[in-house]
């Protein structure tokens, strides 16, 4: 039976929101640091993303005369939608502040709402490059979305729950015993999707400045000052949220103590950032033509995982 909306306990909710708002930029810092170490450099401090955000918030904006209200609505809607999507996710074995049957659909669609407005804001500038980025973003989303839903469908089947808080609860750990092949496939497929949706290597290179090759960064070329801060902050929250899905599948730990659970969760999130950094250091960006193959591959893997469940 489908239950209605439930608000978790107040303390949990406050802790959840604090972690969600404070930690995400740290992940970016860890990724950059990992890449620097691989390159034999010292690298920027781990807290550099926070400094960048603070600097951007103080700066004034420069705005293109072609743009309209959509240009600034883009970052605003995207940041809000991403934060509210992340409020539907459980962190550290705790239920999410807001959870209800079918919240996984709202999660995916809030991210899509953000994508809609980011791409629209990019087209608002009339720039060839930003149009290019927007076209790529929405095109690759068409391949990533079904793959993600196939994975989520398999998790629904495995956990017997229609809530993200139930699907990603520590109980999912038993699935590694019951249906290990499916879990491996889901995690592999979702990892590719997390990299693609967050514009990481091998799909996109967030540190490049060659505009022709990029997807996400090229869409926000014209945003500056506080608007750019909102964009970057939103992007880090999206990476944190999608990473949290993976982390809770791979490390489904419940030690019983709230503090320990949060500690394990945050440590696992940092480990996730290091893994992303390692992948980025060891791989080159794929040619754009092959990105669609990669995403279709991710869809096939998760789909096959689901099929194993349904047949077996």
């Amino acid at each position: 039976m489908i239950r209605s909306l439930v608000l978790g306990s107040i303390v949990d909710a406050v802790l959840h929101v604090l972690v969600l708002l404070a930690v995400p930029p740290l992940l970016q810092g860890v990724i950059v640091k990992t890449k620097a170490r691989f390159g034999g450099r010292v690298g920027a401090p781990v807290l550099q993303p926070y400094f960048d955000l603070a600097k951007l918030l103080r700066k004034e904006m420069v705005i293109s005369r072609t743009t309209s209200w959509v240009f600034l609505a883009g970052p605003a809607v995207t940041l809000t939608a991403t934060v509210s999507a992340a409020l539907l996710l459980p962190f550290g074995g705790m239920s999410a502040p807001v959870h209800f049957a079918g919240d996984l659909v709202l999660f995916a669609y809030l991210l899509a709402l953000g994508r809609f407005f980011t791409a629209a804001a990019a087209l608002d500038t009339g720039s060839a490059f930003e149009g290019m980025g927007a076209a790529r973003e929405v095109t690759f989303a068409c391949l990533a979305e079904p793959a993600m839903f196939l994975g989520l469908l398999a998790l629904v089947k495995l956990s017997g729950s229609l809530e993200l808080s139930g699907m990603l609860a520590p109980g999912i750990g038993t699935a590694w015993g019951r249906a290990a092949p499916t879990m491996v496939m889901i995690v592999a497929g979702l990892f590719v999707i997390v990299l693609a949706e967050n514009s990481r290597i091998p799909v996109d290179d967030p540190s490049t400045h060659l505009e022709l090759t990029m997807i996400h960064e090229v869409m926000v070329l014209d945003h500056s000052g506080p608007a750019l801060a909102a964009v970057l902050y939103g992007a880090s929250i999206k990476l944190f949220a999608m990473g949290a899905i993976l982390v809770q599948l791979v490390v489904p730990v419940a030690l019983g103590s709230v503090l320990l659970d949060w500690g394990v969760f945050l440590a696992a999130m940092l480990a996730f950032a290091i893994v992303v950094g390692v992948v980025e250091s060891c791989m080159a960006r794929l040619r754009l033509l092959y990105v669609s193959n990669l995403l279709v591959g991710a869809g096939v893997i998760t789909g096959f995982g689901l099929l194993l469940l349904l047949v077996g």
Partner: protein
Amino acid sequence: MVADRVAAGLLGLGAAVGLAGAIAAVASPTAHGLAWPWALPWGRLVVAVDGISAAFLFPTLLVPALAAIYGVGYWPPQAHPESAVRVRVFLGLLAGAMTTLLIARDAVLFLMAFEVMTLSAFFLVTTEDGRSEVREAGWVYLAASHTSFLLLLAMFAALHALTGSFDLTAVAPGSIGLGARSVLFLLALVAFGIKAGVMPFHVWLPPAHASAPSHVSALMSGVLIKIGIYGIVRVLEMLPEPPVAWGVLLLLLGAASGIGGVAFAIAQHDIKRLLAYHSIENIGIIVMGIGLAVVGRATHVPLLVVLGLGAAVLHVWNHAIFKALLFLSAGVVVHATGTRDIDRMGGLGRALPWSSALFTLGAVAICGLPPLNGFVSELILYLGAFESLKLQEVRLGALVAPVLAVIGALACACFVKVVGSVFLGMPRDPTVRPGDEAGWSMRAPMVILASLCLVLGVVPVVAFPVLDVAVASWMGQTGARELPHLRDLLPFPAVGIAVAMVAAVAAGLAWVLMRAARGAQVVGTWDCGYARITSRMQYTGSSFGRTLVDLLRPILRPHRHDPVLAGAFPLRSAFRLHVGDVVFERWVLPLVERFADRCSRLRTRQALRIQMYIVYVVVATVGLLLFLIDVRELLRAAVFE
């Protein structure tokens, strides 16, 4: 023009009265019927409003009234002296015919209303019959609709032969065998599938929607094609104990229609054709919902029936609302620019602030994004898909979830393209000068539709009683008792209100950013160091969709014209990408042409003199009379008197 206002006002009044009746029918869901005597040898003049009729009556009454009000400003007699009266007469007739059809309880009355509906829509589509493409679209529509009519005639005749009645009521279980029922179902599915524009029976839909005046397109896309959906729902109600296979067939057709519709939409350059293909997509979503309901009914899972049919009927409402909004605001754009070609527009948001904002809202709604109404019906459908994972017999329904995800992402891509290349950026074609923004008589209907998008997105609970009654009436006497209620299944209004709060926060944040931008330096767009950026460097709608069209090549079969660069000084050349309707060009047209060829032998009996035709008519009449009248009886009477 007073007459004009009176016509729109009367239609609005009729809609208000009808809506009151529909609400009353929902409030006390016992059968409300009326019967009158009539002189025809067949059928009866019986009308009644049950839950299904009531649910479909809401959009069918609302949209024509709003379209008529919009029409006062959009198609004024001063600007269109030759067709203004025609548009008004047939718009009212169409609205009346659709309403009659929804409440008809007799097959003969149903078919008569169906034919009146078809013909009035034909005269509306061919309003601008001076243009050859409009006439062509009209003929294709007429041919498709009459194919549908003939199939329906066969279906009702067969039903009459089996049951001995023309009543549109549920057939007693066990009275018709499964084979006969399946034949009836298939006939109805194709007939109503043509009307609804289910792919691959959709060939009439894109040209007809593109050719009609925009408020007529809104009416057709919003309501007329839903009559086909009503027909499918009604026939499924009449035929008891559906096998799982029917549900599977509906699921497959719905998925094909959903993905196919949106795939073709992405490749279009004509804004109205593009919206028409999105109607095919949304019809696909609705048919998938009906498919889930049939699977639920066949496997005796009431929860699945409620979620599937509830999602389908709610999406009928939602699509009627946001598609009407999109067509009406696109109408303002077409009117203002004088073109339907997306690639020639750009930056219209400045000249048309209201229409651009309203179109953007409609675009967000049709993509199924929160906090608007499209999200709610898709969420219910997703829940149905997850629910069918639990079934033992058939779990195909679960695949509705990834299919919906593909459709949603493609729709998002398509509407980012439309909004971006029509309203945002720089103007692309200096010869296209944006005209005036819509006046209040055109703006008011759009604002009403937009607020309905928001209301049904935030507090969809207001619609749930109607959906519950519709589902109960679809399940009939036996099945209705154990049905769960939608409001117990869904986290509304809590989620709706939470999402609305999120929207408010987003608006607040945007306001903060706009305040911060008030003193900002305003410069040209950063184009990576290139200072003399022109509008020709912008991405066009075609270039935006190119990668997707390439990926979808096996379905779309695009005709591609690449620029030729030869020699040291290449001449001017252009890239063109055209996607025709594959089903029409590759299947329907050759088939029809071959059929017409075969029939050409009959044409030798076709004399070119009118006298010969009169002879044919006389012979036919006498023959029919002889057939109908008992000749011996007649002779006997003549001899004895």
